């Protein structure tokens, strides 16, 4: 057989077989991956909203708001915010009081910060409470803006403590919150 023909034939057959195996494998794993992703979002939203018995979804521009209600009274609002971190996008779910004045809870959805340093925004294995960073956002005042302090305990009600060695990651989280919460508040009030 002609040499070039054989080369083309063999490579084509290998890639076709490879493609078919992968598309089959993808059809098998994709539902599981997607289910995990949407479960994670649902679970975080349930955790973030204060005690509620119904959730109303509201689309505002690029944001999807999840409004938690307890007997028709709004008890809290949760939404996804994103922005650049140290290396890649940090995406998180933030819960705020109905008047957008205070944060009720914060959870990181995905991030690609420096392993062992920036990843402490999610989990800090060196601390007794590994999720101390996100937990300190509870009851932090959003206005005029959230401020981070270094190497000290926060003294004011709009301050949080930055992670030692991961100031940029800490700062990114604060910046993302400051820019997005204000935007959502404005849109929500104009609605």
């Amino acid at each position, binding site marked *: 057989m002609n*040499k070039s023909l*054989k*080369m083309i034939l*063999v*490579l084509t057959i*290998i*890639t076709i077989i*490879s493609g078919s*195996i*992968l598309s089959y*494998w*993808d059809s098998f*794993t994709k539902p*599981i*991956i997607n289910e*995990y992703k949407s479960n994670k979002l649902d679970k975080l939203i349930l955790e973030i909203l204060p005690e509620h018995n119904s959730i109303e979804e509201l689309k505002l521009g690029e944001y999807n708001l999840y409004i938690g209600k307890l007997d028709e009274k709004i008890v809290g609002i949760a939404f996804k915010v994103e922005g650049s971190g140290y290396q890649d996008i940090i995406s998180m779910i933030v819960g705020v009081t109905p008047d957008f004045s205070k944060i009720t809870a914060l959870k990181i959805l*995905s991030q*690609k910060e*420096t*392993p*062992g*340093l920036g990843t402490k925004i999610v989990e800090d*294995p*060196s601390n007794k409470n590994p999720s101390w960073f996100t937990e300190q956002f509870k009851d932090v005042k959003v206005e005029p803006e959230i401020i981070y302090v270094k190497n000290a305990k926060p003294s004011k009600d709009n301050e949080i403590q930055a992670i030692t*060695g991961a100031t940029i990651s800490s700062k990114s989280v604060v910046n993302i919150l400051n820019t997005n919460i204000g935007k959502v508040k404005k849109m929500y009030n104009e609605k």
Partner: protein
Amino acid sequence: MSQKKVTLFQEFLKGIWKENPILVSLLGLCPTLAVTVSAENGLAMGLASTFVVISSSVFVSILRKIIPSQVRIASFIVIIATFVTIADRFLAAYYPEISSSLGPFIPLIIVNCMILGRQEAFASKNNIGRSFLDAFGVGIGFTVVLVLLGGVREILGSGTLFGVEVMWNSFHPWAVMILPPGAFLALGLIIGASNWLNELGEKK
């Protein structure tokens, strides 16, 4: 083959110590240095690479007489990429936490020269049984070093091993160990130690 006979068992063993991909050949250092911030990451990376190197070696060995030598590298890469994607999707579906912490380094196994090296140097010239044993040994050797390196960095850098606290309370983690310099330091010392052990063995 004109070379002296190598027993099947030696074929398996050589990848673990004598021709260890990391300690001796210094192959596949990119994932080695990048993902070993913890023993768990090292183990996951090692097992994923072992799966890929074994499956690719077996397939390359089966197809070694059909693939024309001009397109062999392209064919190897396609075969490797297929198994890497299978491993990547498997981790994303069943071990999403590990998958997100290894990030882009699972897909990057495709260009791990340790794996391509086995196809070119061994599987494309040997029968299926030997290729399987060779890949298995190399995979184990790779995994052991990754876990060792990840373990050392995790203990010194975070004070934990496989996520469990192992250091005393007042121990202050050395942040440098989980950063890139720590990877080079720890790997250099581990390679030095293995060379020292080899020399000791020769003197006897």
